């Protein structure tokens, strides 16, 4: 059965008990902030153009406020007096099959949880917080799109979201180490595995060993140049991704986070360094401790911050002339707007590339590439994902850049697809790849 059919079948089979369970989970995700948000929308519609879905397909359903209203209508009906007394007046709706279907379409099918609408909301509603509560409720009703759930299940089962075996991972690391030794001409250049007491535990997106080994090699080369005391781990805890951020089942997200915590404890490292990945950074830096309901006994930082420090402290030297091509930067939403890592990558790129141009808008105002929010894992919405990415394609085209740099492997994937779809004819690279190529002794 296809994913689409499976979800439809599940929707048709929903019972009153399912609705109740969904509502309970929804209610449990709301704190006073979210309760205020649900009372605050003035239906001004000014958020419409902030959303890349609406920009590329200006239909009512793509307006952030319309997505929000789908959620708020149910909140009003079940949790407010006016929604019970005069539902027609205030637009309250009971949770039923139609509303469950509308929720799925709004929060999984038309939203990448990018948060651009929050910045542009007249009132300041953090819409993704409400959409995440709705995704959690849908999950409790068995309505998480199966392919998204499968990504989480794979991570829970195998310790990484691509089911890479320990043997394959270790072999890949060893092979990249040989490549690094050849590239640097240094037989001592290492990709250390399970080095106890190393200062840094470095984590990567499984796409790197699987599809982009040069990206991992580039990070390793930067560590080598900086003479960093670092390690990877052979066992669970090397994968930085956490699609629990997208299925919004906090318990599952917490279990995946625990892999990182356990690896840090096992190896006794000081700092957990998150490779180039937006949602992986947001998960480890901002959400992981909330999912586990306790602070980490170690520091979490992005490799971007680390490379920025290396340059500032003179631990690595780069020559921008090695990158004469025009380079632009895509800001991953979870790293920048939701992650607070904004300037480090810019300083690094300005130092490493001769012709760096900004997209417009940029930083916290940047448009999502369309691949966020778990969209890359939800095949049923592929056409919408590629269409919504048209906004990003236009931004790239406007820069006339030949190289698009993005510190996120999910964004790399989406940008790669946009490159083909919109015939952009650009190269797509990570920041570490740019730095590694620009290194000088």
């Amino acid at each position, binding site marked *: 059965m296809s994913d689409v059919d499976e979800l439809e079948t599940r929707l048709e089979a929903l019972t009153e008990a399912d609705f109740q369970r969904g509502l309970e989970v929804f209610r449990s995700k709301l*704190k*006073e*902030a*979210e*309760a*205020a*948000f649900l*009372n*605050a*929308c*003035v*239906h*001004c*519609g*000014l*958020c*419409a*153009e*902030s959303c890349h879905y609406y920009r590329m397909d*200006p239909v*009512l359903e793509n*307006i952030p*406020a*319309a997505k929000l*209203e789908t959620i708020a209508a149910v909140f009003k009906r079940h949790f407010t007096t*006016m929604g019970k007394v*005069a539902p*027609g*007046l*205030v*637009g309250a709706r009971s949770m039923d099959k139609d509303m469950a279907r509308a929720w799925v379409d709004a929060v999984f099918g038309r939203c990448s949880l990018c948060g651009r609408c*929050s*910045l*542009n*909301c*007249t*009132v*300041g*509603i*953090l819409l993704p917080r409400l959409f995440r509560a709705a995704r959690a409720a849908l999950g409790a009703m068995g309505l998480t799109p199966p392919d998204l759930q499968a990504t989480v299940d794979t991570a829970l089962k195998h310790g990484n979201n691509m089911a890479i075996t320990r043997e394959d991972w270790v072999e890949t690391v060893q092979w990249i180490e040989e490549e690094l030794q050849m590239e640097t001409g240094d037989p001592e250049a290492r990709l250390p595995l399970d080095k106890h007491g190393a200062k840094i535990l470095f984590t990567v997106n499984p796409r790197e060993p699987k599809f982009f080994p040069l990206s991992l090699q580039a990070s390793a080369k930067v560590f080598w140049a900086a003479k960093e005391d670092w390690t990877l781990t052979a066992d669970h805890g090397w994968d930085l991704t956490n699609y629990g951020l997208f299925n919004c089942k906090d318990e599952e997200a917490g279990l995946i986070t625990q892999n990182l915590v356990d690896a840090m404890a096992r190896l006794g490292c000081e700092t957990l360094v998150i490779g180039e990945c937006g949602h992986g950074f947001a998960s480890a*830096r*901002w*959400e*992981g*401790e*909330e999912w586990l*309901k*306790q*602070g980490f006994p170690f520091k979490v930082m992005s490799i971007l911050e680390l490379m920025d420090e290396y340059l500032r402290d003179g631990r690595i030297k780069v020559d921008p002339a090695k990158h004469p091509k025009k380079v632009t930067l895509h800001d991953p939403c979870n790293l*920048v*707007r*939701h*992650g*607070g890592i*904004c*300037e480090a990558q810019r300083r690094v790129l300005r130092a490493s590339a001769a012709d760096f141009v900004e997209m417009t*808008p940029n*930083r*916290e*105002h940047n448009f999502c590439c369309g691949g966020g929010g778990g969209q890359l894992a939800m095949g049923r919405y592929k056409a919408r994902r590629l269409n919504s990415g048209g906004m990003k394609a236009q931004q790239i085209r406007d820069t006339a850049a030949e190289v698009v740099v993005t510190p996120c492997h999910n964004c790399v994937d989406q940008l790669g697809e946009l490159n083909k779809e919109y015939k952009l004819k650009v190269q797509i690279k990570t920041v570490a790849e740019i730095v590694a190529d620009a290194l000088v002794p």
Partner: protein
Amino acid sequence: MNPLLAGVMLATIWCAGALVVLYMRTKAFGVRQLHSRPAGDARAGVRYAFTQGMAPQAKESVRMNPLSYLAGMLYHTGIFAGLALLGLKLSGLGTPRVLGIVALLGATGGIALLGKRMFKAHLRGISCPDDFVSNLLATGFAALAGITCFLPSFASLWLIETIALLIYAPLGKIRHCLFFFPTRYHFGAFFGRRGVLPPTA
């Protein structure tokens, strides 16, 4: 005491009381305990949210919809002028015409926004009857406040309208007069704590 003025007083008490109850119900949802280490200053984010964060340069949505923004600003200024006039009236201090003009201008902003809601399909699509009732009550309040400054015989109608507005305010979307503040606060605290706002560049 003039029964209409007494009615306004009672409606004000209802409105304030109901808003307090709404706020308490929101507070009852509880505070989210945060464990991650802040990267920025939540308070700086909140300050920004209530100041530069509301300015057109901070919001593409405002820059793309300047007329709606202007109408909204005018509308809210007019409502505040109407409230000031109400305060002056209740205190027996008269109703200055300059405030009346501001209130009337505000009402034109309200009418413009009502027209936009009625005639723009997408805005109609995200609206419910409450949006129209709320607009009519608030616009009527500002308009009658302004008219009363020039034609005192409209005072009774204005006070009746005021009673209706105050009774309805906590029941519909006018409650945003309260929820605007916690929403903006949480917006600023969230982005401030994460070091996103105030912006660095």
